[in-house]
């Protein structure tokens, strides 16, 4: 029974990858253009902003919190970039965006970690405040980006498109931060059991605070990358971005209850969603079913995760006749 359980868990763990494989097979058999390098490059480029957002969201989710304000941060920092930083070289523009978005993240972090407001409500509030301010500075009109920024979209580094480079850099930094620094490992500890972490002497509040800062900064980064792609932003920019990011992170195995998951999963989740969306276009599917397919994929992934944690819980139970279990 025990080994059967382990196999079931392994299967459930592999479910998202099987899903990905299924998507590849289905679309690949329906269109010969789908399984091409050019198309995959295209998918990664299009997935870049959501992937970066999802990586940031992962930090927050790992601490068992949630950040609904990332779309607003994208919009607000995009407005700042387009309206006030038109003339500056792009690296300075990027720096300003990152600093501004990190500050917005810090506001969320302070509200949640130090004032004790539930993150759902705190970031819902800042979501609307942020959008409101962005609308006021842009007067809700389109904000155009100068050529210096939009040309970045076509720039390459050693032949690799800039958006892919951006995702790669963010991914590596985030991965190193989570896996190779004390802070990263403590994020996992805090997310697993905040009381135990506090008892062990970890600065739980500060860790949660910094996760929001990171989520904010990466929202700014995601906004910057998508600005280079679409060239101009409107008042609907970034709407529902938080849900895409959460969906991507959860699809990649990050738990809403903290302590489990990672940035690899976030990248995978974003790619999975974008691959499905891209496949639907390639096979010229009815555009109305796009949201249905995406929602269906998310639902399946979450259901699988629910079953898996249920089984793990049962295995975690302590036994008084251990020899019967081992």
């Amino acid at each position, binding site marked *: 029974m025990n080994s059967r359980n382990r196999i079931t868990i392994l299967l459930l763990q592999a479910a998202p990858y099987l899903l990905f494989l299924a998507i590849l097979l289905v679309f690949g058999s329906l269109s010969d253009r789908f399984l091409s390098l050019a198309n995959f490059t295209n998918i990664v480029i299009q997935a870049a902003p959501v992937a970066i957002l999802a990586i940031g969201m992962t930090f927050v989710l790992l601490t068992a919190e*949630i950040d609904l304000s990332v779309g607003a941060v994208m919009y607000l920092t995009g407005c700042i970039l387009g309206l006030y930083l038109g003339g500056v070289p792009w690296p300075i523009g990027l720096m300003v965006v990152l600093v501004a978005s990190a500050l917005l993240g810090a506001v969320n972090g302070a*509200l949640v970690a130090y*004032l*004790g*407001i*539930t993150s*759902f*409500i*705190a970031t*819902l*509030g*800042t*979501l*609307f*405040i*942020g*959008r*409101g*301010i*962005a*609308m*006021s500075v842009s007067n*809700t009109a389109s904000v155009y980006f100068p050529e210096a920024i939009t040309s970045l979209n076509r720039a390459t580094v050693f032949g690799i498109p800039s958006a892919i480079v951006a995702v790669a850099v963010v991914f590596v930094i985030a991965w190193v931060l989570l896996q190779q620094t004390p802070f990263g490992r403590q994020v996992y500890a805090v997310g697993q059991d905040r009381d135990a972490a506090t008892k062990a002497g970890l600065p739980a509040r500060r860790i949660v605070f910094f996760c929001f800062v990171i989520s904010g900064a990466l929202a700014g980064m995601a906004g910057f990358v998508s600005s280079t792609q679409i060239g101009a932003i409107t008042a609907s920019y970034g709407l529902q971005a938080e*849900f895409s990011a*959460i*969906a991507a992170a*959860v699809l990649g195995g990050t738990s*809403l*209850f903290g302590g489990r998951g990672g940035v690899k999963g976030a990248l995978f989740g974003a790619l999975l969603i974008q691959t499905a969306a891209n496949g639907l276009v390639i096979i010229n599917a*009815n555009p*109305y*079913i*796009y*949201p*249905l397919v*995406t*929602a*269906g994929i*998310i*639902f399946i992934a*979450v*259901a699988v*995760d*629910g*079953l898996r*944690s*249920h089984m793990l819980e049962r295995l975690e139970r302590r036994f008084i006749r251990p020899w019967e279990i081992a």
Partner: protein
Amino acid sequence: MLVSEAVSRRAEREAGRSRWKAAARFILSEYLVLALCVLYTLVMIPFVPEIATVEVWQNILSDMMPLLIVCLGQTIVLIIAGIDLSVTAIISLASVVGASIMTQSDGYLSGPLAAPAAMAAMLLVGAGIGLLNGLSITRLNMPAFMVTLATTNFFGGSAIWYTTFHSTTTSIYDLPDMFISIGDRDIAGIPIAVVIAVAAALIVHGVLAYTILGRWLYAVGKNPRTAYVSGVPVRTTILSAFILSGMLAALASIVYTARLQTGTPILGERILLDVIGAVVIGGTSLFGGKGKVIWTVFGVLFLVLIDTTLKLLGASLFVIYVIKGSVILAAALLDTLRTRYLGVR
């Protein structure tokens, strides 16, 4: 009922010691939001004299009604420590499904039965989605947030798709008069929409305060383990909460649709903030076990009042967003302090 009474009791014990204790009691009481509404209205009179007119209050009342109905459902779900993001999709889908049945240009049904049948179908849509949410949560061990996020995307998308089969544009028009009258007729001087909302509020209040189900809902929200050990059918209770929330969202959809005389698939898309905001402003906790219909009524009133005055002033959308966001934050902060204040002693 429980918390507030305990608070006032505690405050009683300490009363008379100093004046601020009385103030604290008031701030912690459930009438704070109502008092803020009154205060706000008084402050606004010099700027928007219309706020003192009957017509504006009729508008406020009528604008409150559909929102209140959705919020009633959300209150129930928050009491069991859940959350229902799918209400927006339910409003949209129910709207187009109902309209497609009763529209007089090529609807499924015609004649006097069309409107009642359509409304029944709308409620069924709400109950069905609620059931799906509830089953996913209780049987598949999925978190409410993710379940309802997925279903809201799925059924929101379905609503738009569904409309394409029934209309060349994005909405369905030509609804029977009988249905439209819900939006613009009165019964004895009281708009039908108000009658429906008040009835819904009274029923939900009745369920929460006087029924077995009501007690189960609070018990599950306070501590599902204890509830389970005490023989409470926890799964059924959670399921009921989501079905009720779905049906109330569908009921709100009836009122919204009748008011616009049009079934549209983006009807509820933008109201999630208002729904969650109003309930939280009222004082219902996201952690479950706490919540009352009257709180939600006050929360909705406060939100609509702010909205209306800003509208009357011609304030731009961004000001409205910023103010609403701040009010929600302030309410959450107040609630945190309230809990901390209670927790400390």
